[in-house]
Structure formats: structure tokens, C-alpha cells
């Protein structure tokens, strides 16, 4: 059913598009075309291309802390951290955080996405919007909310204390536990969105068929439901992983300085130590890792999709 409507929707687009407007052959049309496109390209060059290019160039400059930068070409800022155990620890912590947050986020998002994909309720639209609406609320505000919940005098510790389970507050902020909990929640809407889109091939009829042919509920899930939803799960995981390893605000606030990941390290090197070439090199490293994961991710989704 969804396949038919999707095809029906997309048909008029490409079918009717080749019209008078589309033949950009005459000079006038070409001028219009350039006038439409050029401002956007210029805007992105200023806002996006130049800063990144300048940053890459900066990473090869000589220099050190306190804003000392000498034009030059050196690979020092890439080679030196390789022998530095602190750098390795920060990088490994970052990746570990990405993995843990990715796995947990997928686990808690899966039932919600499944619920929304299957729902035939008239509130489906509202419930979907409610699940992804937090995406548009400030990350600072949501992290603050978690600080209120997890802090030493926060909701969790106060409740446990008044019920007599604990006497000293549990350490839930200013460490990786708090950062992980916060990030899992903050990236849930992304995971839910990715999964709903990936669940398109799942149909209740298939599951019912398996059930009526005698498969147990568990078997229906492992043999029918899970394989069909796996592409969506994988997409969601990689997306959350990529977002986690580069996120700054939540590790900064919920980590309270005790959690050092690549993003907080870049910030400290930039604004604290003013070691710009090194901060730039760290960013380039993060960007390259990011690029590798994204290309793996695109390969995988293509493979699974085909």
C-alpha cells in the first residue's frame, strides 16, 4: 500500500517537470539560472567552505599555546598526539561513549518507532510529532533538565533519599554516567526518525502469516520482524554514533569538566590554551573520522536497501 502511494506521489514530479522552464538553453534562462544559484553558493562558501579550508591550513602551521601562530608547514600537530597517552585516552573515551550511547539509544528508541510504525490510532500524527518535537528544543535546555533530574539534590537522589534507599547521593552528574543518560535521551528523536523511515518494509500481514503458520511470538520477532527492521536499526545506530562523538554541550555541562572527549578538548585548546594549530589538527582528525563513518554508513544503507 505504501509503495503504491509513494509511486503515485512521485510520478507527477518527474513526469511534468520537463516543461518550458527547464530548457536552460537560451542565454536568458542561463542568466536566470545563475542568478538563482550564485548567491546560495557564495553564502555557503563564506559560512562553510572558507572556515573549514582555513582551519585545515591552520592545522599545518607552526605554533603553540597563547595564540602563537607562525605561517609554515609542519605535520607536528598530527604526529605529536599519536605518542601522547592522554590524546589516546580522550579519543578512546569518545569512541566508547559513541558506542554505548548508540546501542542504548537504539534499544530505547526501537519500541517507540515500532509502536509508531504500527499504530493505526487517530493520534498517530500527534504521537509522532511528540516523539520528534524535542529535536527542535534547545540542547542547552534539555541538558539543564537532566542536571535537575540527576544532580546531587536532583529528582532521582531526593526521591531515593526520602524513600530511605540511600543516605549519600548517587554520583550521576559530572561523570560519564550522566553524560550517557543525557545523550541517549537527546538523540532519541533522531533514532526514532531514522527507524520509522527504515521500517517501511515491515507489514503486519507478514507477521500474522508467520504467526498463523505456527511460529511462536519470539520466533516471529527474530525471523520476520527483526530482519525487516534491521536496516532502520543500523541507520539509527550509525547516526547516533556520529552525533555522539562530535557533541559538545552535553559532555561539557553534564560532564562538568570531569569528562574529556574530543569536542571538549577542541574547546579547551581553542579558548583556554589558545593553541589554535593543535585545535585545528584535532578538528581535522575528528572530521576525517566522521567522514569515514559516514561513507561506511552510506555504503551499508545502499547495500541493505538494494
Amino acid at each position, binding site marked *: 500500500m505504501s509503495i503504491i502511494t509513494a509511486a503515485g*506521489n*512521485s510520478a507527477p514530479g518527474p513526469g*511534468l*517537470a*520537463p516543461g*518550458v*522552464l*527547464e*530548457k536552460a538553453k537560451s542565454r536568458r534562462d542561463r542568466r536566470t539560472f545563475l542568478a*538563482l544559484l550564485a548567491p*546560495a553558493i557564495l*553564502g*555557503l562558501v*563564506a*559560512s*562553510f567552505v*572558507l*572556515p*573549514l579550508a582555513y*582551519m585545515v591550513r591552520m592545522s599545518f602551521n607552526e605554533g603553540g599555546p597563547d595564540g602563537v601562530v607562525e605561517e609554515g608547514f609542519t605535520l607536528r600537530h598530527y604526529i605529536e598526539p599519536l605518542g601522547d597517552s592522554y590524546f589516546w585516552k580522550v579519543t578512546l573515551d569518545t569512541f566508547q561513549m559513541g558506542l554505548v550511547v548508540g546501542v542504548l539509544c537504539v534499544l*530505547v528508541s526501537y519500541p517507540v518507532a515500532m*509502536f509508531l510504525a504500527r499504530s493505526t490510532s487517530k493520534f498517530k*500524527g500527534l504521537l509522532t*510529532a511528540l516523539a*520528534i*518535537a524535542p529535536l*527542535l*528544543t*534547545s*540542547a*542547552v*535546555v534539555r541538558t*539543564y*533538565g537532566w*542536571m*535537575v*533530574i540527576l*544532580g546531587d*539534590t*536532583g529528582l532521582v537522589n*531526593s*526521591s531515593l533519599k526520602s524513600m530511605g534507599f540511600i543516605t549519600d547521593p548517587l554520583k550521576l552528574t559530572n561523570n560519564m554516567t550522566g553524560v550517557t543518560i*543525557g545523550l541517549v*535521551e537527546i538523540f*532519541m528523536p533522531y533514532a526514532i526518525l531514522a527507524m520509522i523511515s527504515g521500517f517501511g518494509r515491515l507489514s503486519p500481514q507478514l507477521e*500474522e502469516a508467520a*504467526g*498463523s503458520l505456527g511460529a511462536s*511470538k519470539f520466533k516471529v520477532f527474530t525471523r520476520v520482524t527483526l530482519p525487516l527492521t534491521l536496516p532502520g536499526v543500523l541507520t539509527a545506530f550509525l547516526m547516533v554514533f556520529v552525533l555522539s562523538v*562530535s557533541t559538545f*554541550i552535553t559532555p561539557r*555541562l553534564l560532564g562538568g569538566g570531569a569528562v574529556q572527549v574530543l569536542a571538549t578538548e*577542541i*574547546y579547551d585548546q*581553542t579558548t583556554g590554551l589558545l593553541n*589554535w594549530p593543535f585545535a*585545528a589538527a584535532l*578538528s581535522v582528525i*575528528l*572530521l576525517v573520522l566522521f567522514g569515514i563513518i559516514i561513507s561506511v554508513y552510506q555504503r551499508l544503507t545502499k547495500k541493505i536497501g538494494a
Partner: protein
Amino acid sequence: MSQNTLAAHPPAAARTAAPVFKPRRKTGTFVFNALVFLLYLFLLAPLLIVVVISFASNQYLSFPPEGFTLDWYAALPGQETFMSGLRISLITASAVTVLVLILGVPAALALARFRFKGKAAIQAFFLSPLMIPSIVLALGLVLLFGPLKLNNTYAGIIIGHIAVTFPFVVRTTLMSLATTDTSCEEAARILGGDSWTVFRRITLPLIRPGVIAGGVIAFIVSFDEAVISLFVAESGLPTLPVQVLRYVENSADAAVAALSVLLILFSMAVVVIVERVMGLRKAL
């Protein structure tokens, strides 16, 4: 009640699976729905808790709330740091929205209505800023702006926000353009309308949902953006998210809760608008 279920049973069972399956499925569904409810609660917990403590009369952050008060809200206008942050954020977000609409809508039009070499590459380029970690972009901007003397200026923040808002405008506008057919535009052209008239009188009204959705998303993304603003303008022009970040870094007390609730309401307004005009799921 039991008669009702009996009456409803046979056809339902015939439609789905073996009747033996039925009772187990019902408890299963109940457990599953309960689980989904709890997960929703987890997802919305930080927002709900902020609302609760913004009305709590506790002097310091603690639970349970001791009473109801509007003092936190009444105190807001007197907090100069937040008010100046709000002013800066409103100015930048408005400017960013106008600017990316001017850049993005024509660009989407070019992508949708012209056939040209390298179209896929241009489209990928337009959406690519969303794939770059904002911390990396923020560092690039602050480094580039140093010699250009753009750090701590409105121009600097606004240029920095173009990249992170532009893809949304292009995406939503493209989506609207893809679902409108071009016959009206062609008719208007044949009848002698020039490009600008055709755009203003025919195309723009047709793609209004996409433009509105893109515009309000651009506004809220810029308004809530904290990382680029922090790098580019922390000392000179701290935006509201930067002020909140700084405040929360030092103490997570209730003073900032009332402000947070207003920010949440603001986001919810955007959500409602986008959901109305084109559907939130499609737009994001």
C-alpha cells in the same frame, strides 16, 4: 462487557490469527504499550521537570516542590544578562532567517526547475553542512574571523549560522516544489508573464508551506544554536543560549527554569507551525 467481547471475538479472530493466540497477544500488547509510555516519559522527562521546578517555591534546587509560585517568572525581566542575550538572539535569528530564505528559496528553485550538469553534486553540497560537527565548523569560523575582525560581531554570528540553517530551507522548499506541478507556471509564461511575475504570483503561493516551514525551522535552529555562537561571540555578543550555558555551568538551580520553559514554549510553537503546514516528520 463480557458479551461485547464475545460478540467481537469471532470476526476479529478470523481476520487475524488462531484464536489461541488472542489472549496472549492482548497482555503482550498491554505490556508493550506500557513500555512505550515509559519511554515517552523518559524522552520528555527533562522538559517536564523544567516546567515543574519553574513553578516550585523551593529557594534552592530540591525535591519535592514545596509550593506554587510565579516568582521565577516575575524575576525574569530583571535579569539583565538574560534580557540582553534574548535581544541578541532575536536579532541574529531574524536576520539569519531572512538571509537564508533569500539564499535558499531561489537555490531550491534552480535545483527543481532546471536540468544541468552536476545537479546531484550541488544538491549534496547544499545539504552537506548538516553532516559537519558544529564544533568543527565553530572552530573554523573563529579562526577565519580572527584576521577578518568578525569575531564578536553580529555579522560573524549571522554568517556562522547560515551554514547550519540553509539546508533546512532548501530541503523543505524542494519538497514543496516536487509536489506542485509546473503547468500553472507554464500557462502563466505562455500568457506573457515574466520570470519574476510568474514566481511571485504563481510559484511562491504554491510552495508557501515549504518556505514557511523552512523559515521557522531556520529561525529556531539559529535561536537555539549554542556552539557556533559560543566560539564566535562568547565575550562580545553572548546570545541567549550562551548565557544559559554559562549560567548552568556554574549552578543548575531553579533560576533558569522559568526562562527554559519560555524557550520550550517557543520551540513548541515552531513545532505546531511546521506540523500544520507540511508535517514535522517530512520537514526534519
